[in-house]
């Protein structure tokens, strides 16, 4: 180790480091599965009208409760047809089409809720971590209060007041699910704050706002993405639960939770109607979690809990 490293060597290590970051992302199996699966679902959701020619709302009472195509193979059920790949629901709507359009709702809920909750939580977390003292005590109190309130109960009560709709569900969840952002951002901000470059910025006379925007924010971005992935999965599951209970997204929208509720009376005759939306939810949440876990592994190998 000499203090006067040649510039060429410095450049080479810099190049190597950048290449190794890219290869760390590409080489991480679960991250690639998560990213790949999620992009596939995103594309399916965005190009839903191109993926399927059926209308998710069109009822066809002559073709109700058609079983999925594999019932023709394994059970010799001649009602199953290729034009309704995954069958039809009790109102004769194509199940595959409703599942594909349902991905739109889940993804939209996931992204919008995280947008709202990350803004609230990150603001509170940074303020608490950066200023400390009384502000920190006060914000910690708000966070504890929020944690003491049962999410499902409060969400149900609010949705009952304003009547269920996509917007209400998103707003309620957005205003309830910011706690993890606040807690994590607070502790990360505390770590960053004690770094020398923050002290340097202070010594130069930068304003608090400038320090937060240019020194703190870029350094907490990784943690923000990781928490966002967790909360997105949580929000999607909560939307499904609320819709399942009848106090979320309302019919005839093809929310996966609502589809499960509509399939519940069919449990004795057509259990596949319950199986399919659940698998869809499972895959979406799994891909988001894998992506989040992967990003955490790559950016903070020691921070796995």
């Amino acid at each position, binding site marked *: 180790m000499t203090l006067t490293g040649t510039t060429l060597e410095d450049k080479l290590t810099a190049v190597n480091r950048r290449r190794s970051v890219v290869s760390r992302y590409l080489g991480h199996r679960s991250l690639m599965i998560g990213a790949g699966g999620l992009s596939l679902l995103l594309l399916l959701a965005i190009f839903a009208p191109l993926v399927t020619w059926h209308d998710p709302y069109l009822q066809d009472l002559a073709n109700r409760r058609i079983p999925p195509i594999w019932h023709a193979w394994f059970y010799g059920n001649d009602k199953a047809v290729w034009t309704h790949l995954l069958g039809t629901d009790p109102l004769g709507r194509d199940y595959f089409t409703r599942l594909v359009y349902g991905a739109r709702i889940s993804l939209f809920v996931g992204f919008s809720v995280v947008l709202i909750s990350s803004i609230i939580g990150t603001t509170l977390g940074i303020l608490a971590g950066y200023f400390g003292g009384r502000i920190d005590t006060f914000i910690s109190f708000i966070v504890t209060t929020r944690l003491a*309130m049962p999410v499902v109960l409060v969400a*149900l009560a609010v949705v009952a007041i304003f009547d269920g709709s996509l917007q209400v569900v998103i707003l309620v969840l957005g205003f309830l699910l910011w706690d993890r952002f606040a807690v994590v951002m607070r502790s990360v901000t505390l770590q960053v704050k004690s770094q020398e470059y923050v002290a340097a910025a202070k010594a130069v006379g930068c304003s608090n706002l400038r320090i937060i925007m240019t020194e703190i924010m870029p350094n907490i971005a990784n943690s923000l993405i990781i928490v966002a992935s967790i909360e997105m999965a949580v929000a999607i599951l909560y939307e499904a639960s609320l819709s399942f*209970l009848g106090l979320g997204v309302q019919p005839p929208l093809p929310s996966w939770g609502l589809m499960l509720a509509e399939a519940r009376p069919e*449990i004795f005759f057509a259990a596949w109607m319950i199986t399919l939306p*659940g698998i869809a939810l*499972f895959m979406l*949440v799994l891909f988001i979690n894998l992506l989040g876990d992967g990003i955490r592994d790559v950016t903070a190998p020691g921070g*796995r809990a």
Partner: protein
Amino acid sequence: MVGILVLMAVAVITFALTNAAIDPASAIAGDSASAQDIQTIRELYGFDRPLYMQFASWAQDMVAGDFGQSYRQRRPAIDVVLERLPVTMTLGLTAFLLALVVAIPLGIVAGLRPNSWIDRLALGFAVLGQAIPNFWFALMGMVIFSVNLQILPVSGSESWQNFVLPSIALAYYAVPTMMRLTRAGIIDVMQSDYIRTARAKGLRPAKIVLKHALRNAILPLVSVAAVQLGMMLGGSVVIETIFAMQGIGYLAWESITMSDPPVVQAIVLIVASFYVLLTFAADIINAWLDPRLRAR
């Protein structure tokens, strides 16, 4: 101290929410009531007073354990809730113990041999398990065990068989988090100096793990487990509703859909006090496990 402040804040929010929800007078009077009836009820119950005065008298009664009359059942809301509590308690405690019994041994085994096949298997199950919505898990359990095999009842809460599926559905969701925390704790602790000393002394590996390592390894688990227990004792609305179990989760859903604010308020505040009490308990347990924390 902070706990009491938190409960007060929760009380204010609950009161504001449920009062914005519905006109209590017309809820009590029913659909066929005339405007005159509603006015009479409004004066009788004191709904014509300003909101802050209503809140003051509500809070005063609440401290004395009186949450008001249930609109639907015409008897004290607290009685309605307490009657439903045993089912939820049984369900919550069973699920919690089940989760601990699965998660801690699995976490220890995985943590002792990081990256071994058993560790990978456990982590794989954790990742898969975390992605399965618990109400779908419950429904699938119903399809398999109640509809196809017909060995477990579909709904109700009369016999022990009714509790099997709901407690598993409630428990499995907590397992991945608890398992990961135990695993991380064990990995961390096994590298510490005092474990090396214990090994050098020639203690049996089982004694090292169970007596020396576990105590420190589960420190982070305690506070998370306390929150999980609080959630389970608060009654899972979704699971109880699916299985039509007569617990407070199902009661909450009924009371919200049939507008019965006093019962909803009572449930929210009881669940919030569980949370406050349990986080307090977690601090005490941690102080007992780790004497270093007592100094603070």
